[in-house]
């Protein structure tokens, strides 16, 4: 997408940790041999004795995080999204989520845009895994600026939080000085014919799709749903009521993620035509992020086409 500055979210994760480190001596940061990639290495530079290298042992890392949190610390634990949520899901469930401890799992390298490393490293299930856990708050920021604000908010939040970040540089669609509140979605563009509800870098794709649709005389609303759990029900219902049809967009499986959360809500409260854009019941593969977005139907063109589909379904239902 053109016109936006592109920054990797994890760079701003590192920056946020450094800023937090200064006045929060209770903050500890744990990593599993990926500090250089997750950017927790920035924290290590300024607060070495509160950085804990756990080695390639994610299950133990979560247990250690829980023990530290039970001793009054606020703990950030980081690795790639697939390992953070998949390798140690049950450790997170028992040690962190059940007792509601102050552990913030910040995972980078989520989604198919991990690219060339292929399916083993492309977490397309992490939102589903974390969303299913009671007590867990799930955040998927749209860009680097929002990633920074989400990390700061998580440090203040009482209880477990999962924050999902990407590897590559995402277009910055929010402003650096925006206000971020956990559980509050933001309407980034107002529209009346269709609602895009998006998370992560798909927010920028939806803005691009909305611009394309505008050229065709279709007015699309774009909602940045950066907190997936708890879902901002009011914003979803208000927008769906206005436009009458919804497209969800996530760089994640359409099973269990944002699309599922929105569809669950709308099917019970306000059944309107919905189309979920994301990866299907399928693993990813190696390739450049751009190539993969085309192959797995995640582009702005795919989003615009989905919008037209739900609009026509809406119109055929009202006839």
């Amino acid at each position, binding site marked *: 997408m053109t016109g936006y500055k592109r920054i990797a979210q994890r760079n701003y994760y590192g920056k946020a940790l450094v800023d937090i480190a200064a006045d929060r001596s209770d903050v500890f940061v744990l990593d599993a041999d990926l500090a250089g990639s997750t950017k927790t290495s920035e924290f290590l530079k300024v607060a070495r*004795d*509160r950085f*804990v290298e*756990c*080695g390639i*042992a994610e*299950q*133990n*890392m*979560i*247990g*250690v*995080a*829980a*023990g*530290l*949190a*039970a*001793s*009054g*610390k606020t703990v950030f634990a980081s690795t790639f999204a697939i390992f953070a949520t998949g390798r140690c899901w*049950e*450790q997170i469930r*028992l*040690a962190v989520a*059940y*007792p*509601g401890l102050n552990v913030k799992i910040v995972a980078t390298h989520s989604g198919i845009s991990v690219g060339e490393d292929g399916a083993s490293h492309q977490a397309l299930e992490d939102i589903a895994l974390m969303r299913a856990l009671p007590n867990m708050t799930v955040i998927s920021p749209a860009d680097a600026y929002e990633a920074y604000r989400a990390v700061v908010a998580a440090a203040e939040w009482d209880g477990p939080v999962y924050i999902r970040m990407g590897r590559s540089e995402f277009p910055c669609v929010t402003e650096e000085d925006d206000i971020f509140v956990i559980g509050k979605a933001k309407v980034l563009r107002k529209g009346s014919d269709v609602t895009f509800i998006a998370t992560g870098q798909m927010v920028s794709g939806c803005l691009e799709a909305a611009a394309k649709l505008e050229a065709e005389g279709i007015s699309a609303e774009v909602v940045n749903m950066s907190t997936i759990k708890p879902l901002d029900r009011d914003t979803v219902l208000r927008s769906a009521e206005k436009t009458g049809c919804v497209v969800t967009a996530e760089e994640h499986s359409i099973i269990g993620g944002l699309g599922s959360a929105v569809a669950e809500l709308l099917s019970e409260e306000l059944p309107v035509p919905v189309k979920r854009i994301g990866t299907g019941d399928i693993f990813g593969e190696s390739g450049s992020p751009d190539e993969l977005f085309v192959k797995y139907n995640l582009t702005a063109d795919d989003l615009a086409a989905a919008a037209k589909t739900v609009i026509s379904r809406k119109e055929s239902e009202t006839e």
Partner: protein
Amino acid sequence: MECDVDGIKAKAEIMRSDIIEMTTSAGSGHPGGSLSAADFVAALYFNVMRHDPANPGWEDRDRFVLSKGHVAPVLYAALAESGYFPKEELATLRKLGSRLQGHPVRGKLPGVEMSTGSLGQGLSMACGIALAGKKDGKDYKTYCMLGDGELQSGQNWEAAMFASQFELGNLIAVVDRNRLQITGCTEETMSLEPLAEKWRSFGWNVIIIDGHNVKQILDACRKAGESKRNPVVIIMNTIKGKGVSFMEGNADFHGKVCNREEYSRATEELRKAIR
């Protein structure tokens, strides 16, 4: 509340009796491993550990993480006997609405440090607690009780490496080596030997004792408490079901409770022991 050797033995027998009472009343639970751990847990709560039942959140308390969470009854018996909650509440074990869940839950019952029950996780949690104590310059000790069968789980060995790397001399693990797991003998199910050598090779100091000899337990804990850099593991040889003749060495009582007739026999035997 500090007891001497005879006092600890008496507490352990009371706890054994409580374990039989509460698991029989619950109709389910894990008496075998609770009984094998009773002497050590009694020694911790009535002599070794610095703790205050009136102030469970005391920052300087010694911590006890029960990694083998299925033996919750032995922990609950020790906590109730210490005065963390009324003894009558033991009768609510495993019942709807009870604070005495089938496996221990942090935040539900005073004195329970961590939620456990899924085997293999407690030592990692104990590492985090011990690390926090070290970073904060506190002198509390962290004790973690592990089942022997539990050591088949790989996360324990991740934690063992961690404790050694971070020189957690304030961490004391204890392995309840009763040699039985739900399927049968540990060595036939998935061999653990040579167990002491495994721990030593991970950088731990190893102390081997008879887990039903209270004097040996106290000596081992004192010696373990003197370690500066190395984490210490006490491997205590025990008998599953210890104290009730027909449960001793019987894998059936890993996860099975007494029927009416067995209950009468068990309570009769324990009554004699308490006298």
